[in-house]
């Protein structure tokens, strides 16, 4: 047990930690971009007939009966844009920790939305992945939970900084201690 704990500590404090966290960020960031793109190219009956993209996703949002109908289109556009932006931010590795926190907050907000939608209309389609995946609301909840878990390493102090940054910080702390 102690050996296992020691190994975990070793991994979290090693320079591999940042790389693992970065890889997981790439997975989540790519997935968010994929979701945004899939929604944008979604086909199906929209408001006034067959549509591609945002109008169809707006129709899915209307079906969830949470957002007022007049706002459904704006909500669809907003969620696609936010998803894409957050995905790009995660992929950029710039301020990785903040990106992970913002993404987690976003996914949590989506999770709340999905729960309310589930309560209102049952286990309907979430429309999250367009035609790539006809996931239900419950599937989307599980997926969001998994993505949040995937981002945890990026929020852990040592893992959120590159090794050089961590070394620099450790060195400065050490020298502060000596002083």
């Amino acid at each position, binding site marked *: 047990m102690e050996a296992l704990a020691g190994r975990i500590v070793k991994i979290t404090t090693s*320079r591999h930690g*940042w*790389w693992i966290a*970065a*890889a997981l*960020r*790439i997975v989540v*960031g*790519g997935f968010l*971009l*994929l979701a945004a*793109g899939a929604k*944008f*190219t979604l*086909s*199906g*009956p929209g*408001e*006034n*007939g*067959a*549509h*591609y993209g945002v109008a169809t996703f707006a*129709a*899915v949002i209307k*079906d969830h009966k949470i957002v007022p109908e007049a706002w459904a289109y704006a909500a669809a556009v907003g969620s696609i844009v936010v998803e894409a932006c957050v995905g*790009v931010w995660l*992929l*950029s*590795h710039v301020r990785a920790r903040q990106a992970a926190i913002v993404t987690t907050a976003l996914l949590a907000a989506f999770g709340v939305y999905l729960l309310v939608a589930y309560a209102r*209309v*049952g*286990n*309907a*389609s*979430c429309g999250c992945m367009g035609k790539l995946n*006809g*996931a*239900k609301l419950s599937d989307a909840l599980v997926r969001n939970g998994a993505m949040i878990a995937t981002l945890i390493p990026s929020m852990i102090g040592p893992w959120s900084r*590159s*090794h*050089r*940054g961590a*070394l620099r910080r450790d060195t400065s702390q050490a020298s502060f201690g000596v002083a």
Partner: protein
Amino acid sequence: MFHRCIVRPFSFLVLGVAIACATSVAGAWQPMNSNDVTSKSVPRPYAGVEAARASWVYHTRGSDGTVKVRRSRTAVARDGRFGNTEHRFTLDRPSAADQFPVYFVFGDGVRLWSAYGEGSRYTETTLPKLPDVLDPAPQCGRAPWARVEAWLDKFAARGIAPISLGNGLRYEASDIGRPGSFALEVGHAGEVLAFELGIDGDRLRWEYDNFHEVGGIPIPRLMRHITIHADGSREARNGEATLERFERDSADVIAGLIFDPVLLNVRYFDEATGEVRSPDKSSHLFTIDSGGDSGRSSGRWWSRAWLLGVFAAMGASGWAAWKRWRGAS
């Protein structure tokens, strides 16, 4: 003391459970064996909804590259509010044209118009004589309610008794005028819960959910299309929207259906060139690929390009991370 406090209450509990079990078993057993529930005694909320059924023609390009003319059937509700949208083939790979979403289908009892937002077809068809078979056209998936009345009549005419489900009744037939079997499930209020088509050991099942009333007619908003393969594996497309676009106001609908394909931006398929053109024939939109490839994919080339873009972004991100990591180590 022990007997009064422990044994006696438990004996009542056991007795209560036994009575509850017996009642529920008897309740479940009775309708399953009774034939007094027939199609005629089931509420018919969709009575008179269907105004027309029609065969209509569309074009597909087969695997050998030749353009084929295919016929499909559709059910249209009175005043054109409810029409089906989906037509697909289960024994073959869906053709390019099969994958195009219908823009609208409208029938006035004599003629039928159908138009497609993405596809190759704008048709105006004179309605033929209706086929007299229990034909569960799979393309009714998006709007089955126009056919429910006719299906129930067919079951009643054959004297088929329903099987009781927890939430309604199920009718089954095997001789349906085409290979396979057909089943219809309706709720206690007559609402369509599901229908099922058995083909070559597979079962295609359409389930309906999220009902709301339109003019007193229970219309489901969501559809689940489930394919149950012969080996028991399942594929499901969940929670797709049913057709609702004509539910708002009949007068508006009728006014809107003074047909103007240019206004509706309907494409048409030029059989001679194999191209899909805009209504004014001035612009070539895309060519349906030979080899049975999806016309949508060639018309919507970016639908693949964006996917490549995402993977490229992930790759670039990985490369940047690796460089940064190497620089740090």
